[in-house]
């Protein structure tokens, strides 16, 4: 019911966006209709247009505040003009009283929703928090490439690339991508991307949504190097010119090899969840956070155990003990995650000032390797690695398994990591 009212009558009932006085239009309209015989033709003409406009906007774009905004200034002014007709013959004190009540209502509404204003005020007025991705755009423009055909696959609806860059792109909605979508395998799709569409770079917004996102994630994870990551939302990948040796890649499930990486390289302790000193029903060693965490010995990716988490709106956290050493440095976190709940789980690195996120798990009931890259802010207060973070969906029986969480210095791709260890072993 609430969403229906907001959908069609948002102009009058969405106090956060349109204040708490616009609902007065409804009783004033009743007053208008009740006094219709006294109304002039121009008043009826304007009311007629207003009603038709309201209905049209409600049906076509009532869910979108920007559409409803079309009527807001007119509605509010009309409310005050019509309201004045009602009180103009009353005493001066009564008029002041009504205006004062309206003023207080406006103020209290602002006070109630002031958090809505805050980020905009900070970003656009006092310019405290510069969220604009200057760095990545400068980096893109500075890329020197001998091939004029080199293109960027632009997977972001924000529109920054085409306005600010001097490079050639191919938009995620471009019909030319149909040939990429038609391919049956990831390998064939990658081949089309590289050789037919001449795509060399992928610019990806962390929240990019498309029906082919899973294929893109596979390409980004397995066939690309991350070359720049903006601290908020954009990542730039370069497609590898040559495929890695497939024999090495096939070994990525080799438990022994991965366990070596955990011992030798990872900045996270107990990332493979082998140690549960406090018992199987308490948090694994070195991990904290809210949620019902238990030791799992059946659904395991690395070693003997994984962590099974049941519930909603939780975090499994480890703080980086020597985070001061990593200020201004790049770090990468990987974790294997398995769940059949779509788009609920991801990894987050948070330093008290800014955050980076991985893609969300697809929910296809298989182990997926999630990855997040992060540059630690020089003013970081801590580095908190949420190896699993769940969105609140209201379902308390959702289950997720997490295993093989790695935290490494630098920007890494899992294939780079495996290749490095393969070489070291040889």
């Amino acid at each position: 019911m609430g969403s229906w009212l907001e959908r069609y009558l948002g102009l009058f009932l969405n106090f956060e966006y349109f204040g708490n006085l616009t609902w007065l239009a409804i009783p004033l309209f009743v007053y208008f209709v009740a006094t219709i015989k006294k109304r002039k033709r121009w008043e009826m003409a304007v009311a007629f247009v207003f009603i038709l406009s309201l209905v049209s906007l409600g049906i076509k774009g009532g869910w979108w505040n920007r559409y409803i905004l079309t009527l807001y200034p007119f509605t509010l002014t009309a409310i005050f003009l019509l309201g004045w007709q009602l009180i103009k013959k009353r005493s001066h004190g009564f008029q002041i009283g009504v205006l004062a009540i309206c003023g207080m209502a406006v103020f209290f509404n602002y006070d109630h929703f002031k958090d809505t204003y805050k980020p905009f005020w900070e970003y656009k007025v006092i310019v405290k928090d510069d969220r604009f991705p200057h760095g990545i755009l400068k980096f893109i423009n500075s890329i020197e490439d001998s091939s004029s055909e080199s293109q960027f696959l632009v997977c972001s609806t924000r529109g920054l690339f085409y306005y600010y860059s001097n490079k050639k792109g191919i938009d995620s909605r471009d019909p030319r991508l149909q040939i990429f979508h038609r391919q049956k395998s990831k390998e064939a799709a990658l081949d089309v991307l590289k050789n037919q569409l001449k795509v060399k770079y992928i610019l990806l917004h962390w929240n990019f949504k498309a029906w082919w996102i899973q294929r893109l994630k596979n390409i980004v994870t397995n066939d690309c190097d991350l070359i720049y990551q903006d601290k908020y939302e954009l990542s730039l990948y370069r497609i590898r010119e040559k495929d890695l040796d497939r024999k090495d890649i096939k070994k990525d499930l080799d438990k022994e090899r991965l366990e070596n990486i955990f011992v030798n390289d990872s900045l996270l302790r107990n990332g493979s969840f082998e140690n549960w000193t406090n018992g199987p029903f308490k948090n694994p060693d070195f991990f904290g956070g809210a949620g019902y965490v238990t030791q799992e010995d059946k659904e395991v990716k690395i070693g003997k155990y994984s962590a099974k988490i049941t519930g909603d709106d939780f975090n499994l956290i480890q703080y980086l003990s020597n985070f001061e050493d990593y200020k201004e440095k790049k770090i990468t976190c990987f974790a294997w995650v398995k769940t059949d709940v779509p788009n609920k789980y991801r990894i987050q690195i948070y330093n008290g000032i800014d955050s980076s996120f991985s893609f969300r798990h697809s929910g296809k009931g298989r182990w997926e390797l999630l990855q997040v890259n992060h540059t630690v802010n020089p003013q970081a207060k801590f580095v908190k690695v949420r190896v699993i973070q769940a969105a609140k969906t209201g379902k308390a029986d959702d289950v997720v398994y997490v295993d093989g969480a790695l935290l490494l210095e630098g920007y890494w791709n899992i294939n780079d990591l495996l290749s490095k260890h393969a070489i070291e072993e040889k």
Partner: protein
Amino acid sequence: MILFALQFILTNIIFSAITCTLLIRLDKERIHSHLELLLYSLGLGPVLTSLLLYYLLLFFPHHSNLFYLLFIFSVYLFLSFLGRKYFSVLLNDITRKIKGAKKTFKSLNTYHQIESILFTSVLIIFLALFLFLYLTNTLQTPLDGTDALRYGTLGKIFFEEKSIEFRWIQPYPETGSYILVNQAPSFSLLLTWEKIMDSFFTVDKDIYYKSLSAYYALLILGVSVLWLSKKSKYLALLGAFALLFGFAFFQTLITQHLDSYRIFFLVISWIFLAYAVEKKDFLSFFLLGTFSGFAAFAHTIGAVLVTFNCLALFIFMKGNLKDKLTKTTSVIILIIAGGWLHYILDIFWGFGWIIFKRAITYWG
């Protein structure tokens, strides 16, 4: 900032003032207040410039920057020639209003004088504070926001190609940008206009384009205050605060968007709908058609909603059928010339607007 000031004063103040003198000339029945016309005209300079640029790029594409600049200047020169006698009328009117306000102030008792000073001070302080923060901070932030960037990219393409054609050729072959919007390119063309002027100073900025959202939001605020102040100045003050404390409207002041631009023309078209039905004077019909056309030229929402203006005019205007048909048809012609033409082109030769959606079927 100097170049921005020049562009702003030229397009928003001088061009608008020229348009205003022409409107005063057309107001033969002396029905409309000159100051009211001036307030509405302040929004006409930019949109008329973008309309001229639209027709120029449509019918005379691929010419030099100088060609477009001189053509637009020539049009305004011609308009100022037509309204030359009315500059002094407008200035005298403004001077008389200021003198009248001074006289009224002197005639007040001390209590009311203090009240007036306090009232005016509150308005000036808020406006000055806003302008200070806006000019020093907000306007300096880079252009951002999906729509502003999308329209901006189109504006850049128009500037590069000097043609409207690339509104319908997507993706744009040079950069691969893929912009499918249903709107007419009015807002984008204001960036094109800025870039044309920039080109003579070998700079490449977008400050003027970024300033439009706040400018038109302030005009909307001004229109609301004007109408409410006719009843009571405290009602006007409350109305202004209530409008600003609706977060959706507040956003238009600080973000870069075309919402305030499109809403302004629609609101003024409704005002002139009321005037046209009530007064039936030539200027009201002319401005109903013109502002409705500009509302359509600014956005698809306007293009849809102004059709109701025509319907309302036909239904509620007093007169016989012939009179109603003639006047409504005249308004429709003005609406088409004022910007609806773009949608006709789009329907038959372009993307199909919202009717056929020819190019959107792939992904939408």
